[in-house]
């Protein structure tokens, strides 16, 4: 009798899990432009009609292309996040994010834990904020953010500032 109750209860938990998962999946069915993962940038362009996706032209050798993860949404505002891994160390080394919202700042698995320096400088008329510091594992991390035609762009990488500046400047035309 007790075993029957136990398995009945396990089944209930399973049903609860399936229901939660279904409720989580519903918004993706209701609206196609809800934040979700995409396989490639072209798919994002096609499905979400995001015309301008800012991609670095300069790309350090150690970083893998194409992005290992791409997330994008059309609502409440268009946004795309590209995660790049290091080809040798299998870890995330660069995250590029853009969002058409004031102050959009994606903080993913790369996050500056200890800020050492903040510098504001100008490049081709853009006001770029550069932050240097260290990430979780004490590696040097640098973050740059600026506004490009209505999109807030942020790049954060496990790189020193000169290298990140090169990447950032390669995104500005």
């Amino acid at each position, binding site marked *: 009798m007790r075993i029957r*109750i136990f398995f*009945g*209860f396990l089944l*209930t*938990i399973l049903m*609860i*899990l399936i229901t*939660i*998962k279904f*409720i*989580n999946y519903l*918004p*993706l069915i*209701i*609206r196609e432009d*809800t*934040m*979700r*993962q995409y396989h490639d940038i072209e798919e994002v362009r096609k499905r979400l009609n995001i015309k301008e996706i800012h991609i670095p032209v300069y790309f350090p050798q150690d970083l893998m292309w194409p992005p290992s*993860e791409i*997330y994008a*949404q059309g*609502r*409440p505002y268009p946004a795309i*996040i590209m*995660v790049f891994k290091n080809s040798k160390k299998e870890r995330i080394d660069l995250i590029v994010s853009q969002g058409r*919202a004031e*102050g959009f700042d*994606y*903080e*993913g*698995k790369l*996050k500056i834990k200890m800020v050492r320096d903040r510098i504001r400088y100008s490049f081709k008329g853009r006001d770029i904020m550069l932050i240097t510091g260290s990430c979780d594992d004490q590696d040097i991390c640098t973050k740059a953010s600026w506004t490009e035609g209505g999109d807030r762009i942020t790049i954060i990488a496990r790189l020193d500032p000169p290298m990140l500046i090169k990447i950032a400047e390669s995104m500005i035309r």
Partner: protein
Amino acid sequence: MDISRVFNTYLGMYITQSFCHSAVAFIIIERTFHAWKITDPFVKQRFRILIIFIAIFSMPLYQLMNPHRGSLAFRQYALFDSSRWLNLELIGSIPFGFIFIIIILITSGIFILQELIPLLKHAIESRMPPSVEGDYNSSSIDNILEGLGEELPDIKVIVDEDYILYSTTGRRPVVYISRGIINMLTKRQLRSVIAHEMAHIRRNKLPLLTIIYLFRILMFFNLFILIEFRRIVQEEEKICDDIAAEKTGDPAALAEALEKLYMDNISITGKDLKRLSNLKETLEEYSHSLQIESRIRRLNNSLNKKEGGYWGMFISILLVIMVINYFIV
């Protein structure tokens, strides 16, 4: 105002996750009661208190365990990502987050009107002691408290024909009882209702109940805590019924007293329910009468059936809830 940004702040995430985590705990615990046919109010109250603790502590605990839990990468593979629903535009351009804010505001309003204001009123009123006749021990009925314990409270009789019965704790606990109740009840019924109040006095001395109430205030916005706290209070009444019945050895006397004091005054007709102006009061009375009925039924039927050995189940259920909630952001 961009609602999605509100929910991306730590406070916004806390409110949302506290709501979702308590919802999951609420459903699982209700199913546990149903599956194992748990009826002991003491056990049920413990489980319900667990929901309040989960609502308060789960999110900060998970964030401590994994600071990246709020990240998009985590959310993509989570069991439930609340931001998907909060940003979802359902009616025109109104996001679901807006509806969620309305639910929070209504819940907060109910808390203020039905719990906080009455509590403050009660606190003010209890500072002004009612007009009393003197110590009950020295008045009409003697030896009524005999055998109810060593630490006996003072009994004060309120000069009022209405049914008033409550107790205060503090250095010298007091049970206030109105003349109306004394006239209505027999000696053994009176003894049982005083024993019930003494149980409240004894249990109110426990710090746990004070902590629960403080946590409940912190969770003023949480609909599930609003429901659970009311059920905790109902369980508390049943626990005190059990203690009183054990002390007096006469559960039927308490059942009879409850019936006399509460049930005789309540009669709800379909006509009452049809009149919209009376609906709120009628429903409140109806719900109150259901609670009293359930207490009377317990006292007449299955009292003092203590259900032991639930700790294993308690810990297992807690673990199940904690694991599921970790993946709900």
